């Protein structure tokens, strides 16, 4: 009886443990199924590289190149902000902040990482965009530049806190050896500690990229929403995520537009999947390198 019950529990947990796999597969299958009809209408190649996105025109145009470029531009811009500031802050917390400051800064950074994206979007829309519009004398504050800035600041706490973890994993002996050889703190930090934490910091950056690519509400509110290929960083753009969020409500179910939006979601999903796998590989190598095991 006892043995039966033991086995029963084991099986229950085993089955429930596969829920994540079921959901992941479910997401993939759903996206594939709903996205499939669009590829009967238009070749994959034309879908990916077409430069016209007019899903509601007659006949409609389903070229998502402007959307992909917008996502790339905004994500790249966000990283230009988030990587130096995030990694710089992590180095500060690791090297310069004293015990008290660190005890205070680390939780603050983590709490800031939890600010909802809609709040960033709102802040970007009502404060940052009008401010930059006036400051730079541009026709609209809602553009790729503003979106990059807001998104970058939003990703900063994440990049910072993962980088800081990576730095704190570097064995003390590395640092002591370097200092003993006569290097000063800055040289030790930049040439010994930071390179040793290099793959951990890369993981932080890659996860930051993943977050920025998939972020929806902030770019929806701040990026401006024009689905044309941007000519400058001050043009309004419409990244993939905000296209889905903005158009899903009006797309007729089962129409080519509807399945085109699912196809965009599928591409987004694949991009983040690749990003995650790269991050996973790098962090595994890193742990092995420092002899931390799995």
């Amino acid at each position, binding site marked *: 009886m006892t043995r039966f019950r*033991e086995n029963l529990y084991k099986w*229950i*947990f*085993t089955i*429930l*443990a596969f*829920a*994540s*796999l079921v*959901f*992941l597969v*479910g*997401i993939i299958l*759903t*996206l594939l199924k709903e996205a499939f009809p669009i590829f009967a209408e238009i070749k994959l190649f034309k879908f990916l590289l077409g430069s016209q996105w007019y899903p509601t025109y007659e006949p409609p145009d389903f070229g998502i190149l402007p959307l992909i470029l917008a996502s790339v531009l905004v994500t790249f811009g966000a990283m230009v902000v988030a990587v130096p500031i*995030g*990694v*710089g*802050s992590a*180095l*500060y*917390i690791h*090297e310069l902040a004293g015990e008290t400051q660190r005890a205070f800064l680390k*939780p*603050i950074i*983590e*709490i800031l990482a*939890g*600010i*909802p994206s*809609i*709040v960033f*979007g*709102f*802040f970007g829309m*009502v*404060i940052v965009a009008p401010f930059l519009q006036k400051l730079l004398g541009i026709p609209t504050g809602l553009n790729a530049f503003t979106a990059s800035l807001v998104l970058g*600041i939003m990703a900063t706490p994440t990049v910072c806190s993962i980088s800081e973890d990576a730095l704190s994993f570097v064995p003390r002996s590395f640092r002591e050896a370097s200092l003993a*050889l006569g290097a*000063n703190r*800055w040289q030790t930090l930049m*040439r010994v500690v*930071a*390179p040793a934490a*290099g793959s951990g910091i890369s993981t932080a950056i890659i996860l930051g990229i993943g977050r920025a690519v*998939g*972020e*929806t509400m902030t770019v*929806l*509110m701040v990026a401006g929403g024009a689905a044309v290929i941007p000519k400058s960083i001050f043009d309004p753009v419409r990244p993939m*995520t905000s296209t889905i*969020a903005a158009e*899903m409500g009006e797309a007729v179910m089962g129409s080519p537009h509807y399945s085109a*939006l*699912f196809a965009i*979601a599928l591409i*987004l*999903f694949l991009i*983040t999947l690749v*990003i995650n796998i790269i991050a996973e590989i790098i962090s595994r190598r890193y742990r092995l390198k420092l002899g931390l095991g799995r």
Partner: protein
Amino acid sequence: MIVSSKTTKTRDFEFPNAPGQKTLRSKDISQAIGFTVLVLCIVFALMFLGSLIYFIVANGLSVISWEFLTQVPRRAMTQGGVAPAIVGTFYLTLGAIAFSLPLGLACAIYLTEYSPKSIAVNVIRLSINNLAGVPSIVYGLFGFAIFVKVFGFGVSILSGSLTLGIMALPGIISASQEAILAVPQSYKEASLALGATHWQTIKKIVLPTALPGILTGVILNVGRVAGETAPILFTAATFYTRGYPDSIFSEVMALPYHIYALMTEGTRPEVQTQIAYGCSLILLCLVLTISALAIILRQRQRREYGS
């Protein structure tokens, strides 16, 4: 930013300054510049985030009143309060946790207590990691296609909660795993040595010991779920309801979606922006209080276990 260790040349290995010697060398100058840059980095980050909080608090405070918190909206969202949105967010979050906590806990128990080192475990780990990276809008589409359409739940609290629950699952699993792993091995060994079975040990020893840690992880995820917008765009949220939701199949107002709708719909932008400030402040207070609570609890626990 990161200078490879290979660039270190022999000339850098000078003897350190002799005591009393005070010549300023290039490496001291670069250290001074470098450290200044690091200070500027963190100051900029904290200033930007601080100004976000400042503007929202400064503009939101004047909007918030007892009426704002407890009344239903009137006159096309320009008067009255946002109580249904607060209640809606509460229901959605509660539903999401009710769904993902048992599932996440079971998964964490399996991974930490039962898992033989096998391909299955690696597959589960990999899918958890990947699930954690799926963009929120993709969850929204999935929830719409499956819960709203295929299962026929419609745009409802149920669909929204399930969608948010799946999204919270990876976080709940890893938090629970961390908490269970922190239970000292000796506790389990003592229990097994006394003749308790594996399940009895888990139920009576492991879970009660890990409970505070698990709760902390859950609270942290509650904060994240409460602030999400994209997953509920098409699965649960609506701009306006007459009153409060009466069943799990009714659509709801929710704070994050309400902010978005106030900024993009309607006819009186100035009034609506003020209300959106109020909603942002409520949401910010809610989320930040919850995560601050979780983080303080966690630090206290970590100190207790000394890890």
